[in-house]
């Protein structure tokens, strides 16, 4: 099986570092999707947030509709749709529509979300996110596989529901975003693909799958990370270092993405030292340089793919601060000088 490559993350953010008009950002998204298709990439991954000042794309399925019309082969993914913040029927119906208008090209990545303000906007308690996720995954499955279904849950009571039209893909592939052991186990119980989990987490998945009576062979797992390829090694490193600091210190700090294990509270700008330590560690994981450097670093990650798992090379290369020509060059170098070598090595490994 050919090594699949997806690029991310399209969040349509008007970064403080480079604020833009959103119409322009969406126009560029369409153009970039067409570049990806021409260059032979497999999946474009969108990402969701709400009520954040940079205009992060809030409704991924609508954006997916636009991408579907702009392309004919490229698969369109969500990384991730924050499922517990939505209504399960709206997502079941909307994902089916996105799958239909794309001719069966939707990849649905879901995650629980974490920003209290986003949950509060929709009147949902963040503390219920895991339980809601479980019910919503049940409902998505029923909605796409059963002609009519009923559901009696803690959050959702549905009676005699027919979700129509059905998606083209039976089923739409679902990816579980996150790396907490409970999340990986949830994915294992339901035989979902893994987005963001580490190879070391695989035994948790295997065990959960085994207990649920599934064979986990053939499950996909994202491997990769923040990547920037340039003809100039140092320029590439400097560029990615700056953007990664913004993403991991400023943005994730502003969101309270990381949790303080001592207090259970989000780590934000009131703990600058802790935040700095985390940002530096995250930054160290970014891969930048000439094609040869990037190939070696990515191979190291790919080589750790657990046996029986299908790797999905997930490269986060889309940053709004990047000059467009540089971004196109990065994609071109990936497709010409990085991915062929990785595919060759992967096939050789068998």
């Amino acid at each position, binding site marked *: 099986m050919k090594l699949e490559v997806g690029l991310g993350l399209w969040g349509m953010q008007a970064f403080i570092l480079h604020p833009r008009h959103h119409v322009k950002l*969406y126009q560029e998204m369409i153009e970039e999707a067409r570049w990806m298709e021409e260059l032979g990439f497999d999946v474009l991954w969108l990402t969701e947030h709400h009520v954040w000042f940079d205009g992060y794309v*809030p409704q991924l399925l*609508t954006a*997916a509709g636009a991408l579907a*019309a702009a392309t004919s082969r490229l698969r369109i993914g969500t990384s991730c749709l924050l499922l517990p913040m939505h209504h399960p029927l709206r997502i079941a119906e909307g994902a089916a529509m*996105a799958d239909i208008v794309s001719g069966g090209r939707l990849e649905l990545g879901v995650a629980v979300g974490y920003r209290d*303000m986003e949950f509060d906007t929709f*009147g949902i308690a963040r503390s219920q996110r895991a339980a809601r996720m479980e019910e919503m995954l049940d409902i998505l499955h029923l909605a796409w596989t059963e002609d009519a279904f009923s559901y009696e849950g803690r959050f959702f009571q549905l009676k*005699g529901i027919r979700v129509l*039209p059905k998606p083209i893909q039976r089923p739409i592939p679902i990816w579980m975003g996150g790396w907490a052991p409970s999340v990986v186990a949830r994915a294992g119980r339901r035989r979902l693909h893994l987005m963001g989990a580490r190879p070391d987490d695989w035994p948790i998945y295997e065990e959960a799958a085994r207990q649920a009576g599934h064979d986990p062979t053939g499950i996909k797992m994202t491997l990769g990370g923040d990547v920037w390829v340039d003809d100039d090694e140092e320029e590439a490193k400097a560029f990615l270092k700056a953007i990664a600091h913004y993403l991991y210190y400023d943005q994730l700090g502003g969101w309270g993405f990381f949790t303080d294990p001592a207090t259970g509270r989000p780590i934000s700008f009131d703990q600058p030292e802790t935040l700095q330590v985390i940002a530096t560690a995250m930054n160290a994981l970014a891969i930048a340089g000439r094609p040869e450097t990037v190939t070696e670093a990515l191979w190291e990650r790919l080589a750790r793919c657990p046996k029986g798992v299908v790797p999905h090379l997930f490269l986060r290369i889309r940053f709004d601060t990047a000059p467009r020509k540089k971004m196109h060059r990065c994609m071109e170098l990936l497709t010409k000088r990085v991915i062929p070598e990785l595919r060759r090595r992967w096939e050789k490994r068998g």
Partner: protein
Amino acid sequence: MKFGLGPYWLDDDDPYQRFREMAQQAWLAQECAFDSIWTGEAHFTGHCPHPFVPAAALAVKVDSLRMGVLCQLGLVHPAYVAEDAVTLDNISNGRTILAVAPPWRPEETSGYGLSSQDDASRFAEAVQVLKLSWAPQPFSFTGRHYCIPAHLKANVAALGQELVSLTPKPAQPSIPLWAAALPHTLPVAIQQRLPLVGLPWQEMEELAHLFNEYRAGAGSLPADHIWALARVTWVAKSSQEAKEAVESSLPLLARAWAKMLGPHAVSEAQLMGAAIFGDVDDCIGQIRRYQQVLGINYLICFMALPGIPHSHALRAIELWGKAVISEFRMAAFPRQIRERFLADVYGWGRELAPQLQEV
């Protein structure tokens, strides 16, 4: 007079193919002087349950038409609808129009786990939330059904934040918001000055009553205030040909809409009575009558008639654009000019069909 095409409620019978046909019809409508293309929303029946997805797809296929979405308010939290609409508006470079209605059937509301007794009050609150969400300034909203922010104790990090700003903002100053002309939407429409849209199955008398009530309640309105009407429309070279086409399709349409619309559904005969069809002159005459009685200045033409081949729909759309729309663009011109220019509408024009394959 402006013209829209739709609303398209895609059906369950090969929806991918229906969408491709819709995209071709949208492209042709853009080539033929229409102003907008519309998608509609209906649940649990095989019709389009999420109208923003196909609307966003069409926004990429056609770059000039406005993207109309006839959507339901009250099934889900209105912030989702506000976000879907701004996403579409930025994708389409500010071409979105949103027409809103409460759910068509009680089964849609109960399917979403809600009581249809509150449809009207949820609709009223949702309209307010949409407007607040699209306005430039942060907001809060406290209603019976929706509170934004909700100030839930569990959301610790959000406590103390009194206002929110849904982002991004529309590409337009605000998204035009219209309301389906129904008795229970009227108070909100009047209060918020939302233009009314008459629905394809409503009879002229019913609409005249609602439009007049609106006029009386809203008081003085600007000359460019929209008065919209959706109608089943069909034009052919002869009245007979058009009549045969509509007669062959209406039993199918009446059946499909009965399933989709529940209490709003009407008989085949009523649909026939409300439809605008015939040769060019017939259609022009019937539209004029709606202009006189209702004062409409925007007609949304439903030409996706079930049972009629896509190729026939393309011909009807093209003829509608060339002959009917052109006539209304010349509305104030002297008769001899109109007659000279419209004398040979059936024979004029380039062949558009070959280009459709690329849509």
